[in-house]
């Protein structure tokens, strides 16, 4: 038997790692990958609460599936943007994409 | 330890039940099951390679393997495997070591793992998951990744190009496969393979023939068989993503292909040909002995080999298509058709056939399927006659390619 808090701490750790990636990486695709880690951490929480609090209903599962859909849409659009930007600016480094500056 | 009980359990294909009754731990039983399943798969594949070469040879008016192991060359594939064992494992310079070495292992693991949810006989199944069909789809989507691993790891333009093509083909044909699989699940009201077999009083190939056809075509493409064997089109991309592999590492890709094809035959049998069922023979009891289990297993094996024979037959008959034809055929013909079919069956099932008895329901669904298929073909013919380039049925497509 595994206490609920183990899952929650595991998910918090995953979220923290993803957070670090989002803030520290320069490459836009690496940032996108870190965002996927964040969404996974959220999903672990949703499923944990489903199993420990409402196993007789499908609340947590349903929202986890919606998060899955959102993650897929986010990755699709994000990568399309990155490819487009790369084609126009020849760079995928987030800091160098400062078209709106000046 | 009662030897009679043991013999009885063996005849009923219920070794697990016997072991449980003498108090063996569940994980030991599971381990024995895994060992049986994996070993059986390997032995059958060795036999299959021989069978395929022999059948193809006959269809092309040749003799095929006839030297090693007697008149029929039965040991030919054993000899081939032994030869491969003594080949040098060349690791080209500049490979990306981890992906390069993981890919051949992972692809075999993925194609073995799907066997866990195939019901081989009544009560004989690795594990009766309630989401078995979904499990199969998930595992086969993992095997797509191995192509990228191999292609990237090889440090070779052709390998990477081949991997990209393979992935484009695999992901494309996964869509009609998923959608056509939804139809039998909808009719059986369950994702468990056992439930699907049990729901087939009338085999689903009779009830929804169009869905079976779409599944079969996408299974051909998923396993990279002719006419969709662009993955290893020797003349174009020199064998594709596994070009830089040699010896047993190469053989693993080969093995996975055969395992995958055999699995697709078995999966087709389970989903559309009512698995181990054959006019109630699987429930036969003789003198308190459930002999039907053994008979059901034989029925299952015979059905699987019949489907596999069709795979070989198609390989011997049809030439390879081009990649643009392959992708157009999928996205502009199979996917729309499977979606239309799914919607039609869903609406018919709920709105008109909710209270219908089994046989009228099956008849109506079959007629619906045939009408949908006929209308599609008719529409395509009209478009072709208008002089536009349209996607023609598969055979014409293949013929024009050459």
């Amino acid at each position, binding site marked *: 038997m*595994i206490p*609920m*808090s*183990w*899952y*929650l701490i595991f998910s*918090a*750790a*995953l979220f*923290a*790692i993803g*957070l*670090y990636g989002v*803030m*520290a990486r320069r*490459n836009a*695709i*690496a940032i*996108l*990958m870190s965002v*996927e*880690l964040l969404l*996974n951490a959220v*999903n672990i929480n949703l*499923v944990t609460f*489903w*199993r*420990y609090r409402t*196993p*007789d209903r*499908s609340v947590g*599962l349903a929202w*986890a599936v*919606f998060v*899955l859909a959102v*993650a*897929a*849409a986010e*990755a*699709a659009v994000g*990568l399309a*943007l990155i490819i*487009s930007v790369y*084609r126009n600016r020849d760079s995928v480094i*987030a*800091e160098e994409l400062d078209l709106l500056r000046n | 330890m009662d030897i009679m009980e043991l013999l009885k359990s063996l005849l009923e294909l219920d070794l697990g039940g016997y072991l449980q009754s003498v108090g063996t731990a569940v994980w030991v039983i599971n381990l024995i099951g895994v060992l049986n399943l994996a070993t059986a798969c390997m032995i059958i594949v060795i036999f299959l390679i021989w069978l395929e070469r022999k059948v193809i040879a006959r269809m092309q008016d040749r003799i095929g393997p006839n030297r090693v192991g007697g008149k029929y060359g039965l040991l030919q594939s054993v000899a081939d495997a032994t030869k491969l064992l003594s080949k040098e494992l060349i690791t080209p310079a500049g490979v990306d070591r981890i992906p390069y070495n993981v890919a051949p292992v992972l692809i075999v693991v993925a194609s073995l793992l799907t066997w866990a949810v195939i019901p081989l006989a009544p009560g004989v199944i690795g594990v009766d998951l*309630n*989401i078995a069909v*979904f499990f199969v*789809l*998930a595992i086969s*989507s993992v095997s*797509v*990744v191995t192509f*990228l*691993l191999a292609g*990237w790891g090889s440090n070779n333009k052709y390998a990477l190009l081949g991997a*990209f093509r393979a992935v484009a083909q695999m*992901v494309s044909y996964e869509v009609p496969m998923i959608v056509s699989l939804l139809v039998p699940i909808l009719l059986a009201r369950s*994702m468990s393979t056992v439930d699907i077999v049990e729901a087939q009083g009338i085999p689903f190939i009779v009830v929804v023939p169009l869905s079976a056809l779409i599944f079969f075509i996408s299974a051909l493409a998923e396993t990279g068989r002719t006419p969709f064997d662009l993955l290893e089109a020797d003349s174009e991309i020199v064998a594709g993503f596994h070009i830089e592999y040699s010896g047993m590492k190469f053989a693993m890709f080969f093995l996975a292909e055969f395992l995958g094809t055999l699995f697709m035959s078995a999966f087709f049998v389970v989903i559309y040909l009512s698995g181990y069922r054959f006019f109630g023979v699987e429930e036969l009891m003789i003198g308190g002995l459930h002999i039907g289990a053994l008979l059901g297993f034989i029925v299952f094996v015979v059905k699987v080999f019949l489907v596999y024979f069709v795979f070989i037959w198609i390989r011997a008959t049809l030439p390879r298509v081009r990649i643009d034809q392959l992708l157009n055929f999928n996205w502009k013909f199979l996917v729309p058709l499977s979606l239309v079919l799914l919607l039609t069956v869903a609406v018919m099932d709920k709105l008109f056939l909710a209270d219908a008895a089994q046989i009228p329901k099956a008849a109506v669904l079959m007629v619906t399927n045939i009408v949908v298929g006929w209308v599609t073909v008719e529409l395509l013919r009209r478009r072709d006659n208008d002089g536009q380039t349209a996607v023609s049925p598969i055979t014409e497509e293949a013929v024009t390619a050459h």
Partner: protein
Amino acid sequence: MFGLEFDQIFFVLIAAVTLGFSVLVVTMRNLFHAALALMVAFLGVAVTYVTLGAGFLAMAQLLVYIGAISILIIFGIMMTRRIMSAEEEPFNGQAGLAAFTAVIFFAFTTYVFINYWPAVPAVSPLAMAPEVDPAMIDNSVVLLGQAFVNPNAYVLPFEVASVMLLAALVGSVFIAKPRIQEAEA
């Protein structure tokens, strides 16, 4: 071992592997290797779902994250080509600050979990999973299917999800497609 039960050891193992590979994801210079590490992390999360009894979601994780999103990411990496440039600095100027923030976040959340969670007083954070009929866990997939089309549950998000997918596909195809004038220029 350390007074842990078998499933606890298993959980710790899976959690360690997942976290280890996610650290690799955010630190590796070679983006392709980072994407591979990401796949292992996804796999670890899928196994976590299985230990929680959510087999369907675990398979959905394999199908969507490993089978689709990872492939998208790898395609994206291949198309933007800046992969083998090991000399390039992977981190920006605020890496130290980012690490600090992440650690603070983790420490704070864990502190809250252990001391103040949950708001419902009857449930301790060390609560075990409630004993339920395995059939109920199995049945959760059917419940999920019903909930998606139940007007009192998730019909709206369900339909909105399909509209979102439509928008995402149209948008990303429009963005990613090479413009014709661009090709001519």
